[in-house]
């Protein structure tokens, strides 16, 4: 196994190894290097010794290494057998996270000058192949995955497809705001669960939900681990629920109330705001764009529905409306249980900067809570995909401590890549930690 460490790596190597320390475990890691590979302190240069000018790599010792203290990584010239032994012990719980062979990189060669005409022709050819393939896929019902996900007696399909059901995180300690029609405050599935709520509808004192939409979204993002009846449908089951009623029971809301709701959630230090709402208007606004960025800077990630104005089977791809079309709002598309884009899910068609779809979530036939007496309901929409992303964002916030733009990054880099194009699903299907 020891020499396999080198042969496992594709590409050129230098014979040296890169050792990554666990954060805060520099001293332990260096002790391990001494123990396994005989690299004593005398043989290790430290970047701290060199000051702002940086390490002079010409001084790299023949048998020893250099420790880059600011990033918690060392490059060491050690015996491959020793490297292999340390790699075996490496892992999440040890002082050394990884031992990897040092590879070699080269500057990328420049492409020959490509004319616009050539690029256009290439684009048109690719577009026509894609269109033809989509049509065929639509006719044949080709599945994105070998077998579609399905609700079981224990779990909704969405919790399986996003791996939320397998996560050991619960959103504990994380404040999650849902700005919507409110929550059915007497719903039995939320009995005993602390809820902070406020109405932003003029003349309406309570955030109680008289529509259903808000209850459904709250259920998906924050529903209980073990519902008293039926399958589990909720993700961040220990998140601190903040309900902002910014939509009336008739489902309408004004920008003033919506912005007041966002302001309230930021002021309450919510790590995530879920907004399953939008206008059928392609224009972005300075207000939402600015507020979204201020929210990120303050440690609040806003997740919004891309919109349901598409009818793809009729050739209409819709567009992403305000406020999801702000680049500072994470905009969410809907996929079905075969991980195909939902018929109604809006595509980025205006192609202005920032109007893109960022990520996708389960949004077809989503089972969640509903006001009594119905108690549960199964509906579809980018409104349903959005709270999946919001709940999973709360899990990532708990798991990593990340907030704002850093939390955005965690969601994006861990998304499951789908075959559908970026304009439809962004980086892919959201995945839980």
């Amino acid at each position: 196994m020891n020499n396999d460490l080198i042969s496992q790596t594709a590409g050129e190597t230098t014979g040296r190894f890169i050792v990554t320390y666990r954060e805060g475990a520099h001293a332990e890691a260096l002790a391990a290097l001494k123990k396994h590979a005989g690299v004593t302190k005398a043989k290790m240069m430290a970047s701290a010794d060199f000051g702002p000018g940086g390490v002079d790599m010409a001084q790299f010792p023949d048998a020893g290494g250099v420790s880059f203290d600011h990033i918690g990584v060392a490059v060491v010239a050690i015996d491959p057998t020793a490297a292999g032994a340390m790699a075996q012990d490496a892992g999440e719980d040890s002082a050394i996270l990884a031992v990897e062979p040092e590879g070699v990189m080269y500057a990328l060669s420049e492409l020959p000058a490509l004319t616009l005409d050539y690029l256009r022709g290439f684009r048109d050819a690719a577009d026509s192949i894609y269109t033809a393939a989509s049509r065929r896929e639509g006719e044949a019902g080709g599945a994105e995955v070998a077998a579609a996900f399905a609700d079981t007696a224990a779990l909704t399909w969405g919790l399986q497809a996003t791996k939320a059901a397998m996560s050991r995180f619960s959103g504990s300690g994380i404040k999650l705001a849902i700005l919507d029609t409110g929550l059915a405050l007497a719903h039995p599935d939320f009995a005993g669960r602390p809820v902070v709520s406020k109405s932003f509808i003029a003349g309406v004192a309570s955030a109680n939900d008289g529509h259903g939409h808000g209850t459904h979204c709250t259920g998906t993002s924050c529903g209980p681990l073990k519902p008293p009846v039926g399958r589990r449908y909720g993700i961040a089951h220990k998140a601190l629920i903040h309900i902002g009623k910014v939509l009336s029971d008739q489902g309408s809301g004004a920008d003033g109330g919506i912005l007041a709701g966002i302001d309230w959630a930021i002021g309450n230090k919510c790590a995530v705001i879920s907004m399953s709402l939008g206008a059928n208007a392609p224009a972005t606004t300075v207000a939402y764009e600015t507020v979204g960025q201020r929210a990120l800077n303050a440690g609040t990630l806003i997740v919004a529905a891309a919109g349901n104005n598409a009818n793809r089977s009729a050739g209409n791809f819709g567009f992403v409306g305000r406020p999801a079309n702000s680049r500072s709002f994470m905009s969410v598309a809907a996929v079905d249980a075969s991980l195909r884009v939902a018929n109604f899910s809006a595509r980025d068609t205006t192609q202005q900067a920032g109007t893109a779809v960022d990520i996708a979530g389960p949004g077809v036939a989503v089972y969640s809570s509903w006001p009594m007496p119905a108690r549960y309901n199964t509906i579809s929409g980018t409104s349903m995909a959005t709270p999946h992303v919001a709940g999973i964002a709360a899990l990532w916030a708990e798991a990593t401590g990340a907030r704002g733009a850093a939390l955005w990054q965690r969601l994006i880099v861990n998304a499951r890549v789908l075959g559908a194009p970026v304009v439809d699903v962004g980086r892919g299907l959201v995945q839980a930690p």
Partner: protein
Amino acid sequence: MAAKSIPKKASVQIDVVVTLEDVHRDNIEAVARRLEAAGLNAAKALKSAGIITGSVAHGKLEGIKSVEGVRAVEAAGGVQIAPPDAPVQ
């Protein structure tokens, strides 16, 4: 029956969303007072967002836009979701 007279455009009230310049966010109350003096009604300061909402007569819109500390003034819109019995929401 006498027809109700059409209001003059200048007097029609518009709901607006005022975005503050970043450097003026800490003085949001002062900016709100200046906006009120320039004709903004029912001014509501949203501190964490750096936004002031209210309504203004159409004729005073330009005056609002040039108040110190204002980055943008936009008409407030609205959103509408599908009814509860719709399969797609």
